[in-house]
């Protein structure tokens, strides 16, 4: 008994900087960053997000999943002495000495309103809703600003050609942070364009699935009701046996 209790305490102790905030007594390496121009000394091993928290910021915006999936923590920075303006997700980027940081919690970009059931599956749909794609000057700023390292300009060019598959595949990992649109000199809203393309491609671009369609009809007809009723009337012990037997028939990957 005593031993197990210690295990849980050991685990909690090992994780405490992540679960309870950083204690400066335990830090050896430090860097200096500038949050909206103000200087802070922060532990070198933290992400931008953790470092801002260490400095005393409590997020009520610009913070979402904290794991690189939601696009809430778009950040723009420039390093001391460098000309280049860079972009990052605050939760997925380690702090570096001399970073000047600001977060972009919201992207004011217009999304087209459309009906997926009624649109034409051809290039016209892109020009109908996002005609500004014709203004693309191929400067590649969108690609350079993408924190997911997607080839954004390439998929915009693919949209101009009506190549749904390339737009859909090329933009699939998009987390819709909006940094591409904020940087585009032609005011294109790349990430909304890509959403339209992916839905159109998902709906019309691949052969229709058959198994789920068939199964839905079977369920509607009540084909599994008898089996459900039988299983649901079994005792716990009978269910346990049934489960154990079923696991033995397991399909492998």
């Amino acid at each position, binding site marked *: 008994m005593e031993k197990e*209790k210690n295990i849980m305490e050991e685990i909690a102790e090992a994780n405490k900087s992540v679960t309870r*905030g950083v204690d400066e007594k335990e830090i050896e390496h430090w860097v200096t960053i500038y949050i909206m121009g103000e200087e802070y000394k922060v532990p070198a091993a933290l992400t931008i997000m953790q470092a801002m928290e260490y400095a005393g910021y409590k997020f009520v915006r610009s913070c979402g999943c904290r794991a690189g999936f939601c696009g809430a923590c778009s950040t723009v920075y420039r390093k001391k002495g460098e000309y280049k303006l860079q972009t990052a997700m605050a939760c997925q980027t380690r702090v570096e000495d001399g970073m000047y940081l600001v977060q972009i919690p919201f992207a004011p970009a217009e999304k087209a309103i459309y009906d997926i059931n009624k649109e034409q599956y051809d290039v016209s749909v892109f020009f109908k809703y996002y005609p500004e794609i014709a203004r693309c000057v191929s400067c590649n700023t969108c690609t350079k600003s993408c924190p997911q390292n997607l080839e954004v300009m390439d998929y915009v060019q693919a949209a101009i050609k009506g190549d749904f598959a390339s737009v859909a595949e090329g933009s699939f990992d998009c987390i819709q942070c909006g940094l591409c649109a904020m940087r585009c000199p032609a005011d294109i809203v790349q990430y909304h364009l890509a959403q339209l393309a992916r*839905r159109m491609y998902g709906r019309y671009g691949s052969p229709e699935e058959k198994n789920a369609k068939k199964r839905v009809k079977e369920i509607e007809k009540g084909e599994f009701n008898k089996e459900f009723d039988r299983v649901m009337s079994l005792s716990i012990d009978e269910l346990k046996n049934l489960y154990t037997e079923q696991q033995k028939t397991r399909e492998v990957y």
Partner: protein
Amino acid sequence: MAELKFIGGYPEYMRESIKLVEKTRPKRIGKLPPQMSPEEKEEILASYHPDYTPGGKRDIKIGPNKGDIAPNEVVDLLEAYPVIDPEEIDLSRVDYEPDILIIGGGLAGTSAALLANDYGVPAEKILLVNKLRHGDANSMMAQGGTQAADRPQDNPVIHYIDGLGGGHFTNKPDVLRALTEDAPQVIQWLEKLGAMFDKEPDGNFTELTGGGTSRRRMHACRDYTGLEELRVLRDEFRNRKIPVLEFYPAIELITSSENRVAGALLWGSETREYKVVKAKATILATGGFGRLHIRGFPTTNHYGATCDGVVLAYRVGAKLRDTDTVQYHPTGAAYPQQIIGLLLTEKLRTSGAQPVNKDGEAFVFPLEPRDVEASALIRECYARDKGIITPTGMRGIWLDTPLINVIHGKGRIEHSFPAMVRMFERFGVDMVKDPVLVFPTLHYQNGGVETDPQGKTNIEGLFVAGEISGGVHGKNRLMGNSTLDCMVFGRRAGMNSAEYVKSVKSNGKLTLEHVKKYVNMLEEAGIKPGRKAPILFPEYRGKAVLARMIDVPLLNKEK
């Protein structure tokens, strides 16, 4: 501590252990440790699972679940005082009056809005409110897939039995049946809305197994399944022009003189004023509690997962169930420090990655149910001392990811796991070439507000959907059943609340009487004021700053 020398993202001493993993790799292909017997499973859970080992929990002292046990961190919130004084709130000025109020914009809340609209509630009579942005939710981070028994070798009854066994036969049968019976319909719905599931050349879905699932029924979108599902549903939601409020967390439910839930009190996290929402039906879809860091574990969860919805529902008298169990995902990142606790999808193991100890030995069947798998990793690290200790003092087990390409051919990891590869790459680790270090992480709230198959609670006018609810997964959830849960019961709550609001003529007078009663109960139970809930966000500010923090009012409020 002396400076560590790093090679390919790992300190030199960890490289020594990686060599042993590489050495045994060819021998481990196709040779998995056997699955545990039911007795072995019980034994390992009792000794090493954070839910079953002593400590960490206590009795709930007040309310409908008085006497039940729950983690200390949850009981702390159930036994906390409200953040408002009901006397200071003016409910006579109503800011919004939708028919249906939905609190929480993940997969559950968004699905509810779409189905309510499909079933006749006009867009302008729905209101979706969010603590952060619409879509900042655990749903967005779901990687592995969504279960649906649609292949000829499979059926909903087999799915039901898998779910029941995974949940240790404690699931609520009627809701579990609803989950498995609606699953193929959910997948079909998403496909029609344009979600890009992984498919075979003939158009049928590419389907994989998960821990504890006996058939291949996992529908995935690479390792961005939740992201794809939710961004498609959110796009459809926006196309329908359904009203939405962001950065307005709910801080209390509102009841009516007719003894039902009749809306909610919101609080603007930017403007700090409250808003009154009066609604005929209220759907709570606020997600789970990962950010409570139960038993000191790191978490896979998003920033807002702080148990708010359960606290609010409990104060109006909603019944909870299965509050005693928590899901720890076996494979959270243990290294590097910046990503500790973040999820490494179970799909990695379904694709062939094996947990391996510091000596390069496989010690557990890679696809046991999550609670059993997590316990095996804890035992290996802390009882058998076969874990790898990181520079920050964490212990971890290797997840031998390079095996995936050995088994399935070059390029498989890169194509199927772009999110994972990207995450490790950002912090200097190449998971295609090297194994990655993992340890169990707090992942999911198994229990929650009890519901019937329609999404209704025991409280009139209150529906729940998604992780906030309890029953469908019993005491342990299987992979791929959470995104499914959100959509099945989100849809059902939307559909049934649309039906329900037709029967509601008037709301009666709005009150916060239940809050006063709850405060009385707290006082009678001898619970001292001090702790307040909902907490809305966890506290991660540096210790040094917190120690010197004071509040200075910027503006004096004219009374």
